[in-house]
């Protein structure tokens, strides 16, 4: 049984209306086909590791939303849609039918081959000539049975954070196996993704090599798979974690999963660096970071650097909390006046905005849609990977059924009332740290071995974002924390989670790793109180000054050896020899983002607050010279010798 044309056209017309197109084009027909529950188009995409929703947004993005003003009456079909309907009609007639069905139409769209949906699918890596065949012969099964795969847990595994949805995805991912054993969690980082080590079990009791499974929001997982194909795959050292198969994105879930395979000895389960440090030995970790991780991946990643002068916000704004969190104000309810924030963003204008203000946003791009929260996330949407996520704005209270939005849409005009600025978010996060200093003062006083007066990072970070920095760009991992680095056989390094891999500021990875080592590992041992954070800060200060560490804590001295290795990698990677501001700025902003993560320990967040303050102070030493960093390029010296 397949669906008839009449029903498809109704749904196509609805899509056309949502997009304010007011005509029937191939894109509407195709989206209507994808909306058929259990339909042929959906099942083909799923087989190829894509979800209908992901593809639908890809098509919408390519076509764009139309204008509210209609300039013709009725709902005409486009010439191309008519051609496709004619092809579909021929297919039906060939089979002795008079009515066009779902399969005929889908086949016709693929056969016509030049329409936008086909172009979008091709860009997503699908081979149209092979899926035409699938469209013709795939049987239509409306009932998708849940594959049964037994899930058991390793003895120490705490399954409390596994939901039913996670289990559905795991069963789908390991379809064909008798069961799986979940060994352990790997430490999460910036994302709220679930990362597990899983051993597949065969029905004869044999165990296959353990793999790493990552489960996250569908869009994130599919983006990661796309990114892996395009940017990462060709640059990996021969022996490392690879993304296996296509992602699994079941229709009934908002989540999806990917598998990373790792060649390990069967008796050795993959471990993230956080847990492997003890086995590896702290004293050896520095050597390992340099000789294994940096050397193995460096050749195609960090060592392939090109000079790059950039304004700091273009690489770093996106890692900070949203610049604004707003409540949507429907059209017609806005009084005239108010402020306007438009892309490209004028920072001084943004600075004047306070909570309670009514602000009109112009030309921001939708980054994410949260249907169950009636919210959308906006950002500037243009430029490179990092830049396009800059100036994140969260807009809540939108009736998404009435005001339709999709990922990638450029919204020319939308109004909201500010509930929270970035400053408010950072203040709130800092308040949770129970600070022994005045958060509104320009400086804070820290009493370690010696008394330090440091800039208040929450008031001082903003200035860093405006600076123009001479740095370098290379392929980077983008989220290089302890949980994403695995130690494999022969102590070889494996990286997982390429959701943020891109061409970006080379030393961002090292600032991220230093931040992670300090907060996730060193503070775990040092404790949560401020005294402990002060003590660690003394060591960071010694590291910055490249002097000997204080003598009061030999264990801490040992724990800092990996950081010395990181700094030596950074030293080599600086774009301008000895110009450490490039690193301190990166470190300050990486540390600042850490204070808002409630998954980090209290001690970890406290230390990061101090590290941000200290790094800003270090950076300020270098940028004392006015002028140099206010412009895209330093003034050039005219070397012509005039006669």
């Amino acid at each position, binding site marked *: 049984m397949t669906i008839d044309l009449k029903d498809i056209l109704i749904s196509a017309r609805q899509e056309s209306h949502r997009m304010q197109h*007011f005509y029937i084009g191939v894109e509407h027909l195709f989206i209507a086909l994808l909306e058929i529950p259990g339909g042929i188009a959906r099942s083909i995409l799923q087989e190829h590791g894509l979800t209908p929703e992901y593809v639908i947004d890809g098509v919408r993005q390519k*076509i764009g939303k*139309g204008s509210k003003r209609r*300039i013709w009456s009725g709902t005409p079909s486009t*010439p191309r849609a008519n051609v496709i309907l004619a092809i579909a009609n021929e297919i039906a007639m060939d089979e002795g039918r008079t009515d066009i069905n779902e399969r005929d139409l889908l086949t016709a769209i693929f056969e016509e081959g030049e329409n936008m949906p086909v172009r979008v699918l091709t860009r997503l890596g699908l081979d149209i000539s092979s899926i035409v065949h699938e469209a013709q012969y795939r049987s239509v099964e409306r009932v998708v049975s849940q594959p049964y795969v037994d899930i058991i847990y390793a003895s120490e595994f705490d399954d409390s954070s596994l939901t039913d949805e996670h289990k559905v995805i795991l069963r789908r991912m390991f379809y064909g196996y008798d069961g799986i054993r979940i060994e352990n969690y790997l430490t999460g980082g910036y994302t709220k993704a679930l990362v597990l080590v899983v051993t597949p079990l065969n029905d004869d009791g044999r165990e296959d090599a353990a793999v790493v499974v990552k489960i996250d929001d569908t869009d994130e997982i599919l983006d990661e798979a796309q990114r892996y194909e395009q940017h990462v795959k060709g640059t990996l050292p021969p022996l490392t974690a690879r993304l296996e198969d296509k992602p699994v994105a079941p229709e009934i879930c908002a989540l999806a999963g990917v598998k990373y395979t790792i060649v390990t000895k069967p008796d050795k389960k993959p471990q993230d660096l956080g847990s492997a440090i003890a086995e590896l030995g702290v004293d050896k970790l520095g050597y390992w970071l340099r000789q294994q991780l940096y050397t193995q991946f460096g050749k195609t990643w960090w060592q392939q650097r090109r000079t790059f002068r950039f304004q700091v916000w273009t690489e770093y704004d996106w890692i900070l909390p949203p610049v604004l969190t707003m409540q949507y104000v429907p059209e017609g309810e806005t009084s005239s006046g108010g402020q306007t924030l438009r892309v490209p963003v004028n920072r001084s204008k943004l600075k004047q905005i306070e909570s309670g203000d009514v602000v009109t946003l112009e030309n921001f791009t939708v980054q994410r849609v949260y249907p169950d929260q009636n919210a959308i996330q906006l950002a500037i949407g243009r430029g490179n990977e990092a830049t396009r996520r800059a100036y994140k704005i969260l807009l809540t209270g939108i009736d998404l059924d009435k005001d339709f939005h999709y990922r990638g849409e450029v919204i020319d005009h939308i109004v909201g009332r500010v509930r929270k600025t970035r400053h408010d978010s950072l203040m709130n996060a800092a308040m949770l740290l129970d600070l022994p200093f005045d958060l509104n003062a320009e400086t804070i006083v820290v009493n370690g071995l010696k008394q330090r007066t440091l800039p208040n990072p929450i008031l001082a970070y903003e200035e860093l974002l405006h600076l123009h920095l001479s740095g370098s760009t290379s392929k980077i991992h983008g989220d290089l924390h302890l949980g994403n680095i695995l130690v494999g056989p022969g102590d070889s390094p494996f990286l997982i989670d390429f959701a943020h891999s891109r061409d970006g500021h080379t030393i961002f990875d090292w600032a991220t790793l230093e931040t992670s080592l300090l907060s996730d590992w060193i503070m775990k041992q040092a404790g949560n109180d401020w005294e402990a954070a002060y003590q660690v800060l003394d060591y960071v200060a010694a590291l910055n000054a490249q002097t000997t560490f204080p003598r009061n804590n030999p264990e801490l001295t040992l724990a800092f050896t990996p950081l010395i290795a990181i700094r030596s990698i950074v030293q080599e990677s600086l774009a301008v020899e000895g110009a450490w501001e490039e690193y301190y700025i990166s470190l300050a902003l990486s540390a600042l983002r850490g204070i808002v993560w409630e998954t980090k320990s209290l001690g970890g967040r406290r230390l990061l607050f101090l590290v941000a303050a200290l790094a800003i102070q270090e950076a300020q030493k270098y940028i004392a010279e006015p002028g140099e960093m206010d412009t895209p390029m330093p003034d050039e010296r005219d070397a012509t010798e005039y006669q």
Partner: protein
Amino acid sequence: MSHELSITVMSGVDDGSLLKCSAENGDGHRTEDGLWVFNIGRHDSNDICLNNDTFISRMHARIFWNDAHWWVEDCESTNGTFIETPDEDRPVKEAVPVAAGQLFRIGRTWLRIEPDGSEE
């Protein structure tokens, strides 16, 4: 030197239409530097007039043949001109070469230059 241009509309209400213009029909004009230029926009006076997309400016872009390529140049339009590349849809600032078959977008409308008529 090509004075004939065929363009297929690839999206919008006119998706699939073929638009032709040629010097013989009185389309286009010669610039000071000797190039034959076709104008494209929403206003009737354009050689290629696309008036079903309100995101297209009245005088939106120009297309000309030079150095064995078609070139597209934005005429300071409100919403810009974009060219499709394997990685992204890149905004056109100065004139850029467009291969036959390659897509470019003005306003919300994707267009494609057809190979016939572009060869000598």
